[in-house]
């Protein structure tokens, strides 16, 4: 959501989106894990939600993940002409992040589908790729 009023000359806010590193051909999500309670997130806060200070250490997650849900958005949002496919992805042993889905294969993933991190797109949005051949069968809704 955007505050009312002109933002024409306002500076862009610092980029709040998750960060990634590339290791070989793989992209990994940079986040944090609490040494006390084990909670993971896409950030490294000074105090974990468990109450422990200074226990969240930086670590990397991925490159795989599982789709919690996805949608194809058909309305325009700034700089992103429709359609755009978005998904909540539970990164393997890591946090849940929002990512754009590369629709190269023209098929949107379903909950439970496996995806892999693919860094950021040209707008800086986290992006995941989906290989339909990896779709699990025998789960009812996913069956062809």
């Amino acid at each position: 959501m955007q505050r009312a009023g002109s933002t024409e000359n306002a500076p862009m806010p610092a980029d709040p989106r998750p960060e990634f590193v590339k290791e070989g051909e793989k992209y990994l999500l940079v986040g944090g894990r609490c040494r006390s309670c084990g909670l993971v997130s896409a950030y490294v806060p000074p105090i974990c939600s468990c109450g422990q200070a200074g226990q969240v250490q930086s670590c990397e997650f991925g490159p795989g993940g599982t789709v919690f849900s996805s949608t194809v958005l058909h309305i325009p949002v700034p700089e992103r002409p429709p359609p755009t496919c978005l998904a909540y992805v539970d990164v393997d042993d890591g946090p849940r992040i929002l990512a754009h889905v590369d629709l190269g294969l023209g098929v949107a993933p379903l909950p439970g589908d496996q995806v892999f991190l693919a860094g950021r797109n040209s707008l800086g949005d986290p992006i995941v790729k989906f290989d339909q051949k990896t779709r699990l069968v025998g789960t009812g809704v996913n069956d062809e």
Partner: protein
Amino acid sequence: MSELATICGVGTTKFGKQPETPARELAWEAVSEAILDAAITPGQIDAVFAGTVFGDPGVATRSLQQLGISGVPIITIENACASSTSAFHEGCASISSGRYETVLAFGIETMTASFSGAISPIPSDPEGAQGFAMPALYGMSAARYQHEFGVTDEQLAAVSVKNHGHGRHNARAQHQKAPTIDEVLESPVISSPLTLLQCCSIADAAAAAVLRPPGTPGGVRVLSSSLKSGGLWDQRSELVWGWQIVADTARAAYEEAGVSALDIDVFEVHDAFTIGEIVTTEALGLAELGAGGRLVESGHTTLGGNQPVNPSGGLLSRGHPLGATGLAQIAEIVWQLRGDAGPRQVPDARLGVVETMGGGTAGVDGNACVVTVLETPASRNAISPA
């Protein structure tokens, strides 16, 4: 049953795109109606709690001064879509504590001053910075429900058909035409699987309520009001966004009022998108987890059913002026409990619930949720059949 406060008067404007009407005139209309309904004078108001999301700084003070409401504390609250129910919640708390005798709770929003369509995502939010518009959040909940519980397109559409059908009886609603299931499903896809007629419209409007101490004769009794922000919504969350915060807030409100979901005669809930009502009715205890789609199909929540939900037409019919929506929901339940709801009256309604859900922040299960339990005025209660 305990009582936090009494609602002695309510008022709202019409709901719709009315960019030609200044905010102050919307405020005058809603607040004047509430003041006259409460049979008080502006000078009796000790404090104002206002809710707005996109309103200009000072909009409440600017809007109220010419009604003679000045020189008293005016506190503006932003809590996303739950802004004015948060204002109502704080107003009730201030009455209950004895801090004030007469409080105006007030909500205002002129959405067309900021947007021509869907609300733009906030660029400072990790998800908003990705262009994550609210329809996509609810689209993902609907997709998950279809996958996990087999909720059908027709069940989603049934919420739209029901609420637009209710809205035909509400002269203040923006949309007063009831579509068919096919018309809902054939309208353009906004965020799969949600179509246009499953998404609320933006609106300009104001709404207000006058609150007085418990026991004030003739007023609707506020039995409880609960306000919570969402817990972390992350990889540990199996429930869709917003389910847990509504359930937690409702549980607290029911416990405070000494009631259960089964006791409630009428609900106004946050149906910004059809899936929102399905999820919310489950979280409020009207259906088991995953059974909300079947609930709406059964007719249980339709006017004439056992527990009507959104007799006003809801946000889908009324439109969604964010900062005014919560108090519009309050106004509808007050009219229902006083027997003033005309052709959409729920017969013998004695207990009503309002639920408002506000979102827009990544990683939490909602910015805010308010659930309040209201009871019919004592005099009416005494003569109503059991």
